[in-house]
């Protein structure tokens, strides 16, 4: 894979426990190459979000470390974009869409006109041109998530992290958003880590899927997805290779239980 501007991530032997009897993650190791899209897939509650918070620098691992481009991270990087499942809680409800999307600019020396321009660009890239004066509560779930995505990408981050981004939107909107993200990631050449419990989604979007299961959570499988890009909902999902991968991943998720 060609070197892109995206970060190279290296997760090494990460373990996390919250107190004596609550070991959540055990010895997790994997790499993400520059510009690669990796999906972390596992059942709800297995610890995916915890792992994500460690990778993004929000919390520290009990053992092991995470390196970005070779350097150990201790706090969230400014070149990272983050999209969570709960758009209603991560978008600031007292700011309109435009101001929400412009939030990452705070503290940076950018002129007002430049800022406006980039906000409009970002909104256009997610299909929300003209909506910058609306407030989050006036928009549908899918649209709010688009705002969140626009905000995550506006500073042209080198790492994009998505935590179950489509779990709270309805099925059809989910498919649209999946394609939107795939498209934007390709355009922005950003390393992407997406966490999802949806097997189909993981395979559809990723270059590689990491299956997490068991308790405490371990990596039970790493699956390379050799499906052609660009991928489409109709064609890719009915490709026999897709179905085979699906079966393999499903088994990998059952982990030691199969």
């Amino acid at each position: 894979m060609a070197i892109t501007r995206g970060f190279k991530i290296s997760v090494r032997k990460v373990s996390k426990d919250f107190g004596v009897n609550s070991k959540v993650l055990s010895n997790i190791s994997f790499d993400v190459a520059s510009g690669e899209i990796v999906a972390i897939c596992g059942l709800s509650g297995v610890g995916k979000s915890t792992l994500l918070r460690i990778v993004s620098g929000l919390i520290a691992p009990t053992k092991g470390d995470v390196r970005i481009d070779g350097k150990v991270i201790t706090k969230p990087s400014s070149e990272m974009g983050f999209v969570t499942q709960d758009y209603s809680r991560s978008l600031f409800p007292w700011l309109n869409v435009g101001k929400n999307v412009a939030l990452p600019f705070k503290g940076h020396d950018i002129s007002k006109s430049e800022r406006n321009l980039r906000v409009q660009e970002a909104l256009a890239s997610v299909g929300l041109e003209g909506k910058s004066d609306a407030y989050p509560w006036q928009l549908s779930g899918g649209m709010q998530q688009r705002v969140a995505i626009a905000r995550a990408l506006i500073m042209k981050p080198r790492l994009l992290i998505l935590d179950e981004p489509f779990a709270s939107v309805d099925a059809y909107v989910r498919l649209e958003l999946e394609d939107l993200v795939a498209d934007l990631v390709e355009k922005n050449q950003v390393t992407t880590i997406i966490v999802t419990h949806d097997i189909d989604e993981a395979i559809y979007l990723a270059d590689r899927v990491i299956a997490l299961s068991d308790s405490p959570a371990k990596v039970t499988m790493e699956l390379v997805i050799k499906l052609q890009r660009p991928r489409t909902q109709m064609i890719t999902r009915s490709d026999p290779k897709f179905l085979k991968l699906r079966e393999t991943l499903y088994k990998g998720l059952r982990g030691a239980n199969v």
Partner: protein
Amino acid sequence: MKTYARNFLWRSWVPLILIALWQILLRNSTNPYFPTPSQILADTKYVITPDWIMSSLKSSALTFLAGYTLGSIAGILLGAVIGASEILREILTPITNFIRSIPSVAKVPVIMAMLGIGQATRIATVAIAVLFPMLMTTTRAIATTDAKTLDMANLLGFGRIRTLFEVRLPAATGEILTGLQAAVQIGILVMVISEMLGSGIGLGAFIIHSQSTFMIADMWVGIFILGVIGLLLNEFFLFAERKIAPWYFRSKGLI
């Protein structure tokens, strides 16, 4: 605007009926303590003279507005700082809880003992009475800021102070507004009491004075004016809530 007016009228039919009932039932009674509404109304023009407005009403208005504003600003700022710091919260909460548990009425003689009699004291009394509930409301609101929202602030690189003023406080706007609404009633109560117990100026003093000089109709006029003021302030809050924090009040189904 039209629906608002219509709602308001619709909401008023019960009070109007009650007043009509009052008028009819007591029309022929000679009870000196409950004059009929028509008598009270007639008396109004004797009470609400420019003089009276200038002295009593102005004094009460000043006491309340100054005290309420000072108290709520202080309460919100202190509450914000305490709410954002776990250690301050843990140390100070029992103390503020205790002081808040003291009936406001009881605080008035204490403050008057400390600061004497006079308008400044009354303002201070209202301010203190409003400060504590606002402090506690704000502390709670700030301390319970949504973890996901705070995460986002963290990810966006906001430091502690910025997070407090640009994330936690705005997020708490709805709760703070609700607290401010409740604080109005406390403020009015304490204002009236401090006027009753202190010197002879203001609505509260007027009401007591009217009663002691047996001008009962006057007293009722005073009571009604208090009610109207409270009602207007309440309506103001309903309006403000809608404008300032629609996202919060909608989610609570109050709009």
